[in-house]
Each structure stands twice: as structure tokens, then as C-alpha cells.
């Protein structure tokens, strides 16, 4: 679409391997043109004239980690919106959370790879509607500090608001010059963290969760990476905790200790012991 910097097969091989190693994002040879286009945008923005120079920057420079986060953001489609596929979230709010509360447990929910935050904020709104928001702890994370800053600011344009149910505006969203703003008490109900799903977490970084939501992320990973990320999520879940992945992201072909369970037409993966 935009003018891409030239990308030889050799540079594609080393650059895509480096990006996969650091972010998990996998690109096949057939996707070389798309990859070149997306990476070129960042490389040019950063002031590089060739993708080989940019590769060496990512490989050797001290600022590479921050740049990789921005690159990951450019590579994936941060195309999310409020109340996107809400059914599983509603089941969490109607059934899973009350069940945990009834057992005297304060539910902890992690929205992994939350992008600009529409999903955890939707969850917060649903919990608020059910009168449960202050009884639940929500953590939302992404690899990119920039998108997290966006989420914390709580300002959204029309594209993020395209599936809003009528009851939402005025109750949790208020008009703003450029679109809508999420009420601060909703945005504050979420703890925002910068986390790369590929990295091993620091022991103190995250506690265990009763529910992990990780939707539309695994599609970017190769099978081996999916297994390792899902294994990490498994370790972050409390016994019999719930993992929610995207509708097109089945884990059935992987050797993972989860049982697939159906609740009201939505599918969850329930943690099993190994």
C-alpha cells in the first residue's frame, strides 16, 4: 500500500526471525510484501534508509526493546472495539465471577494483549452493570507502552465505538471533542501493565488469575510459540481457572492441559492439572 523499503530474502530471513524471537510474531515467506510494508513504516519513522540498517538497530542497539514494542504494534492489527464478541464476557460476569464470589474468592482477571484497552474496559462496564466491579480485580497488559497510554487516557474515536449497545453512552462513556471518553472510574478500575507475552515474567510481576482473556493474539504466532505462551498462561491461572481465546483460535491441536468447556454457546478452556 505505502512505499516499502526493499526487502531481500536474506534480510527477510534474519529480520523476521529476530522479530519472532523477541515478540512471537511469525511471518511466512509468502507474507514478505506485507511484512516489508509494515516494517518499512517503522524503519522510516525511525530514520533508517534500509531494512538491514534497521535490523542491526533492533539487534544491537540499547533502544531496541522500546522499538520492538512499537514495531509489534505496527505488525499486528490493533483492530478492536468496545463490545466486540461480548457473549463470553457476559458469561464471565453472569456465571463465573458470581460463582467465585460465592466461594469467598475475589476474582482476578487478566486481559492479555489488550491493545488499546477496549476489551478490559468493556468487561469493566459489564461488571459495573452487574454491581460487581469493586469486587473484581482486572489487569490488562500489552507489549506496547504507547497503546497502554492510549487506553489509560480513555479517549476513543468512532471506529472503536461501532458496536456500542445503546445503554453504554452516557452511562460509561461521555462525549468528547474527538469522539468519546471512558469515565475515569471505569478506566481506573483496570490496572494497566506492559508485558511481552513471550518473555518469562518476573516472579512478582503477576499473581495467579482466575480468568485470563487472550483473544485474537495467538493467530499471529507459530504453533511452537502458541504452546509456550499457552503454557505460560496455564502457569498464571489458578486451578480450574478459565482461559478465553478468540473464536478462531482453537487449542485442541496442542498438547495443553486445558479442557474445552461450553457455556451458553461460548467456549472456554478450563485449566487441568498436568
Amino acid at each position, binding site marked *: *500500500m*505505502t*512505499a516499502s523499503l526493499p526487502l*531481500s*530474502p*536474506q534480510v*527477510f*530471513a*534474519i529480520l523476521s*526471525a529476530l522479530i519472532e524471537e523477541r515478540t512471537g510474531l511469525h511471518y*511466512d*515467506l509468502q507474507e514478505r510484501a506485507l511484512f516489508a510494508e509494515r516494517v*518499512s*513504516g517503522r524503519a*522510516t*519513522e525511525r*530514520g533508517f*534508509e534500509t531494512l538491514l*540498517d534497521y535490523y*542491526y*538497530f533492533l*539487534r*544491537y*542497539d540499547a533502544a531496541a526493546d522500546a522499538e520492538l514494542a512499537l514495531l509489534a504494534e505496527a505488525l499486528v492489527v490493533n483492530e478492536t472495539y468496545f463490545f466486540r464478541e461480548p457473549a463470553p464476557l457476559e458469561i464471565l460476569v453472569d456465571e463465573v465471577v458470581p460463582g467465585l464470589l460465592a466461594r469467598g474468592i475475589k476474582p482476578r482477571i487478566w486481559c492479555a494483549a489488550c491493545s488499546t484497552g477496549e476489551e478490559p474496559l468493556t468487561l469493566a462496564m459489564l461488571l459495573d452493570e452487574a454491581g460487581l466491579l469493586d469486587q473484581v480485580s482486572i489487569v490488562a497488559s500489552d507489549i506496547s507502552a504507547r497503546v497502554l497510554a492510549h487506553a489509560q487516557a480513555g479517549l476513543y*474515536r*468512532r*471506529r472503536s465505538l461501532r458496536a456500542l449497545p445503546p445503554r453504554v453512552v452516557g452511562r460509561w462513556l461521555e462525549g468528547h471533542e474527538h469522539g468519546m471518553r471512558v469515565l475515569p472510574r471505569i478506566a481506573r478500575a483496570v490496572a494497566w501493565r506492559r508485558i511481552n507475552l513471550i518473555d518469562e515474567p518476573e516472579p512478582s510481576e503477576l499473581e495467579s488469575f482466575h480468568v485470563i482473556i487472550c483473544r485474537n493474539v495467538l493467530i499471529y504466532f507459530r504453533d511452537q510459540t502458541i504452546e509456550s505462551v499457552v503454557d505460560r498462561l496455564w502457569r498464571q491461572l489458578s486451578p480450574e481457572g478459565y482461559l478465553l481465546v478468540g473464536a478462531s483460535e482453537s487449542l485442541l491441536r496442542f*498438547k495443553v492441559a486445558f479442557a474445552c468447556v461450553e457455556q451458553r454457546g461460548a467456549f472456554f478452556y478450563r485449566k487441568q492439572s*498436568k
Partner: protein
Amino acid sequence: MRSASASPPLGEHERLERVKNLAQAGLPAVAQLVDELVDASWTVRRAVVAALATSESAAMPVLIEILRSSRENEAKIAGLVDALSATAHPIDELLLTLASADQVAVVCDAAQILGRRESTRGVTKLKELTQHADDNVALAAVEALGRIGGREALESLLILADSRNFFRTFPTIDILGRSGDSRALRTLLRLSVDPLYGAEAVRALGRLGDPSALPALLDQLTRASGGLLGAIAIALVGIHDVTEQRFGTGSVVEHQVSGSAKVSELRQRLTLGLERADAAEQLALSQVLSWIGEESTVPTLLGLLRGGPAVAERAARSLKRLGTVAEAQLIAAVHAGTSEERRLLVPLLGGKRSARDQLIACLDDEDPTVRALSCDALARTSDPVAVPAIFPLLADIDARVGQAALAAIQTLGSDDTRRLTLAAAFSADARLRRAALRVIGYFGYAEGLDALIDASRSGDERLREAALASLPFIDDLRAQHELLEAAHHESPRTRTFAVRALGHTSGDPTVLAQLRSGLGDSDAWVRYYACQALGRLRDDTATEQIALLLEDAFGQVRVAAVEALAHLRGARAFEILSHVLGAGDADLNRAALLAVGLSKRAEALPHLLEALASTEAATRLVALSALAELGVPGALPAIATATRDADEGVRVAATGFLAARSDLAATNELIALLLDAPTRQSLIRALAKPAPDRCQAIAAALSHADDLSAEALVATLARMQSEEALATLRSALASANDAARRASASALVALQDVASAAALERAALSDPDAEVRRICSASLVR
């Protein structure tokens, strides 16, 4: 209560270990190993199947006996069938005996295994089984014969299809369609008009992909109704796709449809079919309508753009094919469309001047992707009237849009561009100003020099960078002077940009001296670009200084030193590079491999061949590129071997390097590879690139090729689209080799080669081979 003696269940890892131990125990443990096929884990079961398939030959009768006598567990049976299908031991005789067993289920398994093993020895028995009293056995035999293929298997399938026994004819039609064997054509055509089997036979004709079926299908289309309309459209598209894949063009299909004497009836029927069609049928019907140039199909195609990536891609192709017929509706759809719809529609209007105003309107879309796509589409109109509208997008909040706008403006040029750029070069909007500075450099606007100098002295670092990047492209000594000044700037980034820009100058002694001084800069990126620039400017006097940087603390500097030495090419530089090969740092090693390739020295060959055996695919790929660059005779066999590398990237690159060579040796390597793997499309594409003597070499190979190879060789000639290639195809029609005549006849019919009309007509009447006569008769029908 748990028994005290019960041991805990084994984990998967332990169970896999047990499978390994049982496999090592050999024949005595085979029955035990078979029992492991009921394990709950798929991984364990796969390991058992692999162990059984590779167990000693004496184990095979044991496995077959278990399969015959122990039928209580489905998982066990499935595992045994898999293992016996995969084993390399000669077990055909045992299987033929098994296929005579009393139990129907056992016979079915035997038939399946014979098919999966593609056992030609099993054909006679399988033919017999197609007449078995039990339909399941007959079906298993039919499927097995389909897998085995070949003349004898096909003939039995043709007889079976004509038997009109519902439970046997139906699956046989499907198998015939998938056979790819044009001898199935007549039978399928006969069945296509049968009320019971018609739709299934039509689908099979589409899968078969033989254009000879077109007249009959088109005739049937004028009378068809209901679901058959969709089935025929799908078949027409199928034939189109197969022909396109074989010969690089499906135009014979498009032309037969659009040139049909009954085109108005066809149009009416196809449009009627759209009303009740499902999504797949709608797509096919619309595609066929687009060949006719039918405007009324546009709304359907527009709707299909929302139907998922594969459907949308085909619908877009059809809309493109409709061209100007669809233009007005496309423009209206863009006008009324949402951002999502515009994402799909705007690319279809790329280059259309009539859509200019609507595309300009899309520059204001709230979706940045639409804005960027609109810039791209406007750039392709080559209409500079759009420049003033695109210009403000240089300052777009979304970087991708800014990039697209910049690319569009660079493509479109114009006096407006000059005026707007020079004005924007002093804009208060930093983003717009930076973009304008880049445009000044791109077009080399000499009047923009003052703006560049002003910006290169700005307090804004990014502005300085944009100005410095453009300065080397202004033909004025003041520009070079400014860069030399900036190379001493206190900001490392500014020095970096200045040094990099100096590398783009002509490299007079002052510049070279400054660059050599840059090799000792405190900032790694300044040293990096100083190396790069000195290499590019071929400053041999810097060789030793650059060599010292091979020990630099920063990886990027070490790599840049290697790359610079590669460009210097002196004997000393090569000697230094040879020492770097095999370095622990993979990047350094790869850079050295490329460097020795660039040196074009024969001494580099052993280093590169060694690197081709690396366990890292990226290193093999770099070594391969270097070998190709080296261009010495010993490189060719290694490149040919790399076309079979385990890594796809290496394989594709190796094929590409062979294709890029125009010498006869490379052509012969490609032909040898193609004869070895006639279905590999990448090889067909590679060999289809014109090169001296290539047609002659292909003609020589055609003279003794079998059917499959002849088809592949002919496909390369058809895709060349040159007069020489056509002449070679025409000559092949007179070859003594039946396979060459069959393949070339198919190609000449598909290419609608007018000059061959008389020869095809003669062949249709008098060729000694019936298949050639049949293929050529299709051209007579038209």
C-alpha cells in the same frame, strides 16, 4: 480405597519412553506395542504407529494377523492401518491375501492400505473388489484405485461409472474428477446429462479442468435451472483455474463463454441462477458473468467483497475484469460506503481518472488505512491535479498515511508539487515541514537549498535529520559544506545522519577525510555509517582503519566493517574477510559470507559451500545468495541442490537464482529438476523465464518425456508468451513422442493459437494417438 500396590499412572513422557523401549525390543514386543495404540494421547499413538511402521519385516505378518483377528478396538485398527500403509517393507502379497478375507471390514482395510501404498500390484484385486456384493468394500476399492491411478485403474473406474449403480457410480464420479486424467472426460460428459448423476458429473468436470468440456457445459447451461446453474458455473470457473494454472492463462475459457453464439441466453440463465445461489455459487456465477462483461453482476460482486478474504479476492478480480463496465457503480459504492467497504473498494479504483474526485474525498476518511489506500490509488492515476489534496496528508497523524502521501507526491510530481513543497519547507507544522524537506531532496529542487540549510541548523533534531538526508541530492557545494559541518555536531544522531548523507555524495577528498575521521567517533552509529560510506565510496586507503573496527565493542559496527571491506575488494580486504568467516557471531559470519561473494574470487567457493551446510536456514540463505553472486562454475550444482533444501525460503531463493541465470547449464539444471518434480509450480515459473537456448533445451527434453513431464515442460513454454516458445509448441505437435503431442495440443488449444489451427485440425482427424485427436477436436468445435 486405593490399593497399596497400585502405581501412579505414567505421564506422557514416560509412556513415550515405554514405546521407545518396546520398539527396541523388536519382534517379541510387537503385540505389546500394538496394545499401546489405545493410549489416550495422540502423541503417544503417533509414536506407536511410527515404531510399528519401521519395525523389522518379520513383524509385518504379525501386524496383518492382528488386523485380521483383533477387531474390538477402533483406535487399534486405525493405528495398524496407518502403520501398514506407511511401512517400506514389501507387504503387497500379504495384503492381497488379506483382501480375500471373509470379514467385510477387514477387506475394506486391506483395500484402503493398498490404495494408500499406491500399490499397482493391487489393481487387479481392487478391480475385482469394485464388484463385491458389499457396497462398502466396493467404495473402498474405488477410492484405492483413485489413489493408485494409471491406465488400468482408470479403465476400471470408467466401467464402474457407466454401470449406473448408484452407490458405486456416485463416488466413482468424484474420484474421476480428481484424477486429472482427461480420459475420464467422455464418461463424465455422458453422465453430466443424466438426471440422477448430472450435477455430480458437472462438478467433476470442473475439477478435471479440461477445456474440451466447455462446449457441452455451455450448451447445458442454456437449458439448466435450479442448483445445476450454480454447479455449471462452478465447473466453468474450475476449468478456468486449472487452465490458468497449467498455461498461465485461462482466457480460452473466458473467450469461449463470451464468444458463445448463445451469449444472451447464457447471460439470462446465469443472472437467474444468482437469485437462489449459495455464496460459492454466487461467486462462480458472478465470475462467469464478469467474463461476459455483464454490468448487472456488479452489485452481487460488491456484496461478495464482504465475504471473507478468499471470496473477496475473487470478487475483486472479477470487478477488475469488468473494467469500465463496473466503474460507475464502484465509484457510487465508494461514495456511499463505510470505511470497511472503502478499504476493499478503493484499491479497485487505483489508476482510474474518472474516480479521482471520489478518491480525493476518501482522503478525509476517518480510517487511516482508507486515507493511505486513497493516496496510493491517486498516485496510480498519474494525475497531478490530486497533489494539492494529498499534500496536507504529509502531516497526517498516522505515519502510514504520511508515508503513502509522500510516495504519491513523489510519483505525481508537477509544478504544484514544487510550489507547495517550497512553501511547506518553512511550515510551522514540523511533520509537514519534515516531509517537504524530504520531497526537496527527492526531486533535487535547487531552490530548496536555503530551506534545507535553515532546517539543518534548527534546534529540532528531527528537522535537522530530514534536512541532512536531503542535502546530498542538491547539486551545490554549499550542501556538502553543510554536511561536513553537521558531521561535527554535538548531537550523535545529527552526526550520524550527516555521515550517512556524506556517503551519498561523490566522495571528494574532504568528504573521505571526514568519513575516515568518523571511524573514530565516540558514537557507534556514526562509526557504522562511516564504514558503510567509505565502503560505498570504495576508499581503499581506509582498509586497515576499517579492519580495526572488526574488534569494535558494538555489533553493528563490526558488521558494517565487514560490509565495507566487501566493497573495497582489494587483496588485503579479502584476506581480512577470510579470517572473519566462521565467526561466532552469526551476523558477522553472514556479512562475511555475502562479502566474499561480492569479491567474485574463486577462492571464496569452499567457504560458501561449507556455509551451505549450516544448521541455520538464514546462514544457508546468505551463503546461497553469495554463491549466486560469485558466479563461478562450481556454484551451479550447489545452487541446484539447494532447490531441495529443507527450508522454504532457501528453496525459493535457489530456484530464483537458477531462473535468473540465462546460461544453458542453468536451463539444463532446471529441466532436470522439473523432470524430477513435474508438479512444482515454482520450477515451472522459473523455467518459463526466457533465456537463450532455453526453448531448444525444452524441446529436446520433450522428445522423450512422459505425460506428466511433458505437461510441465509445455506449461513452461506456454507461460513464456514468446514467438519462439509458440514455435517450439507447434513443432512439438509433430513430435514422435505421443506425450509431447498430447501436451502441446492442450497448450495450443488453451492459448487459442491461430497459426496452429490447420495443424490442430489435421491432428484431430489423423493423429495416430486417440487422445491427441480428442484434444484437437475441441478446437474444431469452436
